[in-house]
């Protein structure tokens, strides 16, 4: 993946030179190890800022619909891995942006690393992180580890079946091989196998450390409502404190608002400062979307999302 950055920069420089786009949204290096910072590049001199590596785990589609430029009709280029591109498609399907406004610089993705998993291999804080092909070299004051990237991939990347952008204007590298999984939702099945009380306890425990910072919501490209339901005051749908019922309500409804739209990009988990795997909620919805409607979000510009259209053969056994 690290080799494609030169290509990305060259494409970017060309786009700016030809005046085809006003800005390029991509990632730059962060100020601490394993951090990547979303950045908007608007001049050739800043092109060197762009990087792409295994720590670019956020979803840049988030910066398109919420960017003030997009409202002005400016043309924007986005460096997009498979999931970013799928969320751009979702934006287009949901009329948040138009296709001709966006220039997709597609990046075939070999997965993003699970920063928490890596941090947990150390007793002290990580001081250095380097990537060489499939090998990661990570250092702290106390030790130095060399690990295979495939051993520390995020869960959503382990189960990803669309690492290549389904829609793009240009690719920065050759597509990578795509996997098919026999059991794409083993994690969901494991929870489903528990009895109801155990499931309830599982989700209560999952969210008990939530601090309601809403990083999961704000990192999500799907969450673009002008006023989120948790911020409504009349009526006030959900309490704002740390009461576990309010916390659960928030997570349940946030997830449900992503039903049939989620691309499992993992930005919510990546952003959570408390290490809560909020994907546990959306994964169930993604499984249902696939099993009930044969739907995976963000693959097709023409098809309407399942909860957006009525079809006579929609499953309806639940209506009594």
């Amino acid at each position, binding site marked *: 993946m690290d080799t494609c950055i030169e290509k990305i920069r060259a494409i970017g420089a060309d786009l700016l030179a030809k005046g085809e786009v006003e800005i390029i949204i991509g990632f730059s290096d962060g100020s601490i190890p394993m951090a990547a910072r979303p950045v908007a590049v608007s001049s050739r001199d800043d092109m060197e800022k762009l990087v792409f590596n295994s720590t670019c785990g956020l979803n840049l589609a988030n910066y398109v619909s919420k960017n003030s430029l997009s409202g002005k009709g400016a043309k924007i280029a986005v460096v997009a891995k498979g999931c970013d591109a799928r969320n751009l498609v979702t934006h287009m399907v949901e009329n948040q942006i138009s296709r001709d406004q966006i220039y997709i610089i597609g990046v075939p993705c070999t997965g993003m690393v699970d920063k928490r998993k890596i941090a947990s291999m150390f007793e002290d804080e990580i001081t250095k992180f380097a990537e060489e092909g499939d090998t990661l070299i990570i250092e702290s004051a106390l030790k130095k580890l060399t690990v295979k990237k495939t051993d520390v991939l995020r869960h959503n990347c382990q189960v990803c079946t669309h690492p290549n952008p389904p829609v793009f204007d240009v690719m920065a590298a050759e597509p990578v091989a795509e996997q098919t999984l026999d059991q794409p939702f083993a994690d*969901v099945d494991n*929870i*489903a196998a528990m009895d*109801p*009380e*155990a*499931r*309830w*306890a*599982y*989700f209560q425990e999952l969210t008990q450390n939530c601090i309601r910072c809403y990083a999961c919501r704000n990192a999500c490209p799907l969450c673009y409502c002008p006023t989120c339901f948790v911020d409504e005051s009349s009526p006030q749908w959900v*309490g704002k404190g740390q*009461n*576990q*019922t*309010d916390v*659960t*309500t928030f997570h*349940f409804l946030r*997830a*449900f608002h992503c*039903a*049939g739209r989620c691309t499992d990009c993992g930005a919510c988990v990546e952003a959570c400062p408390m290490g809560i795997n909020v994907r546990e*909620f959306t994964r*169930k*919805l993604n499984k*249902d*979307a696939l099993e*009930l409607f044969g739907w995976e979000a963000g693959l097709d510009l023409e098809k309407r999302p399942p*909860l957006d259209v009525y079809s006579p053969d929609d499953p309806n056994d*639940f*209506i*009594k």
Partner: protein
Amino acid sequence: MMGNLLEHMGVDRDRIHFSWISSAEATKFVDVVKEISDKVRALGPNKKFVKDYNK
């Protein structure tokens, strides 16, 4: 999908009910509400999604 997610989170499926009732179907509405009330009453008090200020 909403019912499924609630059930997945451990909420009792018998407490979740979806019906399609037209505004003209008053009797159906009454029947459905009665049926659900009886069913839920039989389940006993719900402990999930209930706030407790004494905690």
